[in-house]
């Protein structure tokens, strides 16, 4: 704040004195305009902090009410019966489902996204790459409910074949066995989430790959490297941390995605050993599905599960931030 006064107090010597000079002097050193403006903008910043604090505080408060009434262990129980006397509910199934579906999504989306990003920066004909990147940019803006509707109506019936095939050849693992029910399963959810986070991971990775200094690629080329070897020697090492943080961004989305999971998954409060059989649930999906018929305790219980989701996403985003920060230091030391 004092910087503003310092800078404005040191204008160059004005060439012509009178009227301008007078006006400046009349306004004085305090300058109410500056103070009001600073107050407003700083106030907005503080308001943001207050909102964040309030989110944490109120969620914790309501969650503590619910957990206090919970007759079972909140972390390890496989049930969600808030209507029972005494109520018994826990997040074990939800935590499992959230993590499993997100892991499936990441396993599919990250390699494909990196490949598409490489396609756009190093393989596609230039005339094609620009428009495609633009379209992918737009696809990142498609609302999740539309993905959900598409997933439920189009993707689910199309996965029957894949499920049958997995069951036939990999069914013996137990993870890929299938009892023939409509594939409203964790695998389907994972695939849909992968499709949803594909555009965002692709976009960020593409940006990173585009920033690879041309001279590093030329160094590899001049040594007689093929295109793939250039990518392995110069592009991927340079872009690695960027890709990781892009993936974390995608992971954050997948963890918190509500509607797409709610429309596709056929939920239950059991942990399915097979990824192909319907059942299970995620934090966000459970909140959306259970909310309609929940009484006050039911809502508090859902808020408690939301708090857990909140903490998980905070951790993931924190990790992404830490990686980005390290990358900045790293490239700074390089310059």
């Amino acid at each position, binding site marked *: 704040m004092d910087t503003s006064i310092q800078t404005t107090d040191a204008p160059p010597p004005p060439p012509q004195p009178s009227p301008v000079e007078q006006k400046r002097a009349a306004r004085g050193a305090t300058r109410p305009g500056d103070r009001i403006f600073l107050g407003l903008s700083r106030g907005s910043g503080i308001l943001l902090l207050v909102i964040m604090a309030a989110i944490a505080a109120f969620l914790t408060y309501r969650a503590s009410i619910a957990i206090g009434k919970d007759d079972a262990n909140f972390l390890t129980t496989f049930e969600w019966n808030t209507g029972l006397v005494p109520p018994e509910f826990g997040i074990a199934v939800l935590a499992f489902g959230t993590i499993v579906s997100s892991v499936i999504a990441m396993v599919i989306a990250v390699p494909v996204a990196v490949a598409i990003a490489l396609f756009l920066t190093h393989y596609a004909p230039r005339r094609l790459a620009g428009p495609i990147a633009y379209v992918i940019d737009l696809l990142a803006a498609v609302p999740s409910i539309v993905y959900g509707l598409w997933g439920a109506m189009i993707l689910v019936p199309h996965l029957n074949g894949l499920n049958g095939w997995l069951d036939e050849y990999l069914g013996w693992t137990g993870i890929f066995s299938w009892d023939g029910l409509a594939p409203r399963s964790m695998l389907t959810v994972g695939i849909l989430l992968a499709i949803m986070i594909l555009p965002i991971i692709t976009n960020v990775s593409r940006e990173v790959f585009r920033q690879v200094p041309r001279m590093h690629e*030329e160094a590899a*080329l001049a040594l007689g490297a093929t295109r793939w*070897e250039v990518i392995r020697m110069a592009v991927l090492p340079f872009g690695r941390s960027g890709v990781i943080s892009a993936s974390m961004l995608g992971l954050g989305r997948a963890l918190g995605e509500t509607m797409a999971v709610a429309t596709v998954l056929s939920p239950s409060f059991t942990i399915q050993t097979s990824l192909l059989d319907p059942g299970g649930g995620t934090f966000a999906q459970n909140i959306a599905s259970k909310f309609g018929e929940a009484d006050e305790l039911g809502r508090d219980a859902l808020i408690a599960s939301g708090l857990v989701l909140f903490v998980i996403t905070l951790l993931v985003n924190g990790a992404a931030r830490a990686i980005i920060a390290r990358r900045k230091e790293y490239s700074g030391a390089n310059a």
Partner: protein
Amino acid sequence: MAKRIDVSGLTAYYGSHKAIEDISMTVEPRSVTAFIGPSGCGKSTFLRTLNRMHEVTPGGRVEGKVLLDDEDLYGAGIDPVSVRREVGMVFQRPNPFPTMSIFDNVAAGLRLNGKYKKSELNDIVEKSLKGANLWNEVKDRLNKPGSGLSGGQQQRLCIARAIAVEPDVLLMDEPCSALDPISTLAIEDLIGELKERFTIVIVTHNMQQAARVSDRTAFFNLAAVGQPGRLIEIDDTERIFSNPSVQATEDYISGRFG
């Protein structure tokens, strides 16, 4: 090892823009040939056509012939990747791979071309670093990142990386323009030693440098901005700097333009 380069009727484009036109010259093996000329005259572009790096630039294409000991680099069936393995290049700004150690930087080209035993790699890396006059400075920190070296050391590291694969020709694109005078001197000394083993072509903005290091000098010029660059003359360095046969060369060298 060192090979002769014979260029005839070479024209290079960026998209529809003609960057250099109809260049023919011969570069002798085991000698240093310097390219001089004003900015934008296409000497770097021409250099990059000699190892097929020009076509890496979007829109870049080439017409004409570049014979490397009777084999046309632009002939049918020639693999540009193999060309670049045999015609090494050092760039204007030192560009060691930032994520690799000093050792890995030098070994990078070797690892592409086949499997080597650890001891073989050690030998070649040591020999290359010695060849680049860098061994004594880095032998105790081969596993440290190459980006931690000074600019001049980085450039010598890049030279070591280029000579590790034993190319036939070594192209240098203004290798000293980003370096201080002492590092420049070190590189110039090194060029003098390397010409015993390699055919060296060097682009430079610095006429004293051309006079100091090269055996032959080629002068490039362009008629006007937007016009393609052309080879004005190529001759023994001594002659170019004392008694050139073209007036424009003399004007450029004596500092009347450029």
